């Protein structure tokens, strides 16, 4: 039981005793209503979860996954940003981080999708890393969430399910998608943040790739005061 729940319980008991006393000794409706509101607030406080332990565990697991990706990116030192694509066969979203592009990027991504999954992909179109981002199993994560529209899905996963960002907004214009949010979780992983976007951006990219079934290229991310603005390009 958390401290807030204990306060809620005491508030509930206090309100209940006060209500009974008021009904017996001073039956004034506004006073009774006020004491009932104290009872309700006490009940509300005692049933809420303020520091959800499983949620924290989920965030720690996601951080661990991001750390592993950071280590791989540190090893290969790619200079281009990731392209998130949904692999229908494996039901996962992969982040393709180009190392060398000989023809053009869409051709390389198409070549990846035509081949089975492998961490280091090399073909005539170039070479790239195929990474499984922290929200790779986004289909399972979304479950029954309405997935026809991008914004509700992104808001639901980032703010409600994972609680890694708040004030999430998504807008799109032509082939660009703009994401704005206030991060709750911040990772000090320079390579990961540079190539894949910060953790909430990466999760959002996975959702967009899954919902739209398009290739989603992480373009850039800007930090303005406490907000993060990310840009994606889709095709």
């Amino acid at each position, binding site marked *: 039981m958390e401290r807030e729940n204990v306060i809620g319980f005491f508030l509930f008991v206090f309100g209940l005793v006060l209500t009974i006393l008021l009904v017996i000794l001073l039956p004034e*409706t506004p006073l009774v209503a006020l004491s*009932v509101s104290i009872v*309700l607030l006490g009940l509300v406080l005692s049933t809420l979860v303020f520091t959800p332990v499983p949620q924290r565990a989920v965030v720690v697991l996601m951080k661990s996954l991001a750390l592993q990706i950071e280590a791989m990116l540190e090893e290969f030192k790619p200079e281009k940003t990731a392209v998130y694509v949904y692999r229908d066969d494996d039901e996962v979203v992969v982040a393709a981080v180009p190392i060398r592009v000989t023809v053009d990027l869409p051709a390389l991504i198409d070549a990846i999708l035509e081949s089975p999954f492998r961490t280091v992909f090399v073909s005539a179109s170039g070479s790239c890393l195929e990474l499984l981002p922290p929200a790779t199993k986004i289909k399972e994560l979304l479950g029954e969430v309405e997935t026809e529209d991008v914004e509700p899905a992104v808001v639901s996963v980032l703010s409600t399910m994972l609680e890694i960002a708040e004030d999430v907004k998504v807008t799109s214009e032509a082939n660009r998608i703009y994401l704005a949010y206030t991060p709750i979780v911040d990772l000090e992983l320079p390579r990961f943040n540079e190539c894949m976007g910060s953790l909430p951006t990466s999760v959002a990219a996975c959702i967009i790739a899954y919902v739209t079934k398009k290739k989603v290229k992480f373009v850039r991310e800007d930090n303005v005061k406490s907000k993060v603005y990310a840009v994606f390009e889709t095709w």
Partner: protein
Amino acid sequence: MKRNVRYVAFLAVAMPLTVAVLSALGEQRIDVYLSLFTLEYFVANALFSPRRRTRDYLGIILLVIFTYFVAMRVMEVLYGG
């Protein structure tokens, strides 16, 4: 601010405010107060979707009380005081 804190803050402001306004208007029926508390509770739930330990039993209780008051009012209208 976390959404649970905003949720509690919303209710902590809305409920006493309701009592103050209704009492200033001279309202003496307890069912009016409780119905408005129920309404505020569900509005707050919809706005902040707070994270709970259990199912929303309080919501169910409030809804039952609200339904009872509405039923009483309907009966009053249909069959007279």
